[in-house]
């Protein structure tokens, strides 16, 4: 067990974020069953350590490309949970102005460069962003997150190769939650140890326990630093588990209750609590205060989302082309 190098405030902040994400997601699930949220809705429940552990390692100029399972990613990067929830509810006040929904969160200010819906399709974008960073001789890092199922698609192969050939500052993070919908990595990948696939691109790679915030955090921080210093790509696999279905529509018949229970015993939030309590950083009282603050935050977000207006259908064509926008502004 490595010693915690972060200061108390930081550690508490991680806890706060993880709880916030958990509560946010559970509330989103509720809103989904109440039909305030529609379409696909993929939750981060169970994966909070991979979310907070990776993204907290980034500097203020670094940028993130991620996939459709990204509510937590937005929150961890600093997006207002209210704007996230509003997006999930398709409101004009949402992070993507109600156009993107759950799968397509974008927050320029917090350098969240989008959640994407075509599996693996965003990896090339991350490589391009890193290319722009190199082109301008900047020291920023691009973090690109994706599921283990994405490592089987061609775009993964091409993107990793290009990142290495061009020497680009990307940290590829594979969030291995054991399932791609109903399929396991063992069934789908010739090399089920995902991090080992990086051998084909000569990218240094490692695996970390994705249920352990501190392990994820340590590895991410180190790798982000390496990427920044060398300007070269790195690869991190974080093993975790989604406690809920693939999306809200999933009956989950492809896995046993037993398996789910076993993973739930390693709940990443409980692990953090235990550790922080042991280290005297968290006590039941502080925890209660933090938890109810998070609850209130989610409450506020929900209220904001529900009360916000839908986009006006008169603005259906807004944002299609940049020129139109300018025209609109000029008028």
């Amino acid at each position, binding site marked *: 067990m490595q010693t915690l190098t972060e200061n108390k405030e930081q550690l508490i902040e991680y806890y706060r974020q993880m709880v916030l994400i958990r509560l946010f997601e559970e509330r989103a699930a509720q809103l989904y069953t109440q039909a305030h949220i*529609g*379409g*696909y809705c993929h939750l981060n429940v169970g994966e909070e350590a991979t979310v907070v552990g990776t993204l907290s390692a980034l500097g203020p100029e670094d940028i993130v490309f991620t996939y459709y399972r990204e509510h937590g990613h937005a929150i961890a990067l600093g997006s207002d949970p209210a704007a996230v929830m509003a*997006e999930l509810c*398709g*409101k*004009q006040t949402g992070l*993507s102005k*109600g*156009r*993107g*929904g*759950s*799968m*397509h969160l974008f927050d320029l200010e917090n350098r969240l460069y989008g959640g*994407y*819906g*075509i*599996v*693996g*399709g965003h990896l090339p974008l991350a490589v391009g962003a890193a290319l722009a960073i190199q082109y301008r001789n900047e020291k920023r890092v691009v973090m690109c997150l994706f599921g283990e*199922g*994405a490592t*089987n*698609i*061609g*775009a993964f192969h091409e993107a990793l190769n290009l990142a290495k050939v061009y020497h680009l500052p990307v940290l590829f993070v594979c969030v291995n939650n054991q399932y*791609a*919908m*109903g*399929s396991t990595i063992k*069934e*789908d*990948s010739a090399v089920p140890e995902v991090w080992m696939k990086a051998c084909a691109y000569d990218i240094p790679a490692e695996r970390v326990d994705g249920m352990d915030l501190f392990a994820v955090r340590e590895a991410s921080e180190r790798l982000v630093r390496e990427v920044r210093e060398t300007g070269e790509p790195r690869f991190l696999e974080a093993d975790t588990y989604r406690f809920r279905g693939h999306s809200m529509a999933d009956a989950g*018949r*492809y896995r046993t209750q037993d398996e789910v229970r076993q993973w739930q015993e390693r709940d990443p939030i409980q692990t953090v609590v235990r550790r922080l309590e042991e280290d005297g950083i968290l006590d039941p009282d502080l925890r209660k205060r933090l938890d109810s603050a998070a609850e209130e935050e989610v409450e506020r977000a929900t209220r904001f989302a529900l009360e916000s207006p*839908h*986009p006006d*259908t008169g603005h*259906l*064509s807004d944002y*299609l082309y940049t020129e139109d926008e300018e025209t609109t502004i000029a008028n």
Partner: protein
Amino acid sequence: MPTKTYREALNEALREEMHRDPDVFIIGQDVGKFEGAYRVTQGLLAEFGPRRVKDAPISETAITGAGVGAAMLGLRPVVEFMTINFTLVAIDQIVNNAAKIRYMFGGQVSVPMVIRTPGGGGQQLTAQHSQNLEHWYAHVPGLKVVAPSMPADAKGLLKSAIRDNDPVFFLENLALYNTKGDVPDGDYAIPFGKADIKREGTDISLIAHSRSVTLALQAAARLQEDGVSAEVVDIRSLRPLDTETIVASVQKTNRAMTIEEGWPTFGVGSEIVALLMDQAFDYLDAPVKRVGGKEVPMPYAKPLERAAMPSVDDIVNCAREVLA
């Protein structure tokens, strides 16, 4: 005749054809254990086992190409894509291999495969998951493209698709899976290249395919209230196109419009209009109009999505213009 959902009709066609022909097999993501992203393959793994129902990784290019390769050796693969949107990562296999292999090799080999996938919007699945691109495939010589709107057609056309000796792009629609209709039992196959008059009428032809047919039927019912007798032509087969039935309908009604869920510019309706221009010009009492989706990526917010999709109102209003 038993009443079944569109989904059940598809499932039945798959099951029956797999019983009939041991060379038919299914390949796709989560078609087995998960029973299909939209449950079309429900029960098939249990019935036929993993040799005939093959779960595959997220590798649409490899899956599709593997279908083509297996078909070249005489098997009859049915490749499932979770949605038509994902065909874009494998379109090269469909267009440059499946469609061209027979021709460019001088007829030495056929590619008897089916690509099944749902298109369409209305489920708040947003920009990357709500497209209608079937006419891209219908543009390509060497492919056949069908798009059933009703459960019976779904069964009958899927059977023909599986028995066809050439590659067939078989378009389903997310919003149709739960719709119900009478479906003939047993060996019911519908030949390709036949449009179907889903409702007879004398004043205007509403020409549509896939889910738009159901909208057209609703619009026709509304128009009836105004005393307008609208004929609903279900294109059903986009390639080959049944020009005869479509033209005959318009020669009778003298007025027409097209309805499609997708973007109209360079869309399905454009081809139908061009066809009518060519073969029914002298019969037209008014210009043929097109109704389709609004020309934006599909937005998420429900009111925007609704506004982006063609509605029964849109069709009725457009029909009135054509009739004016």
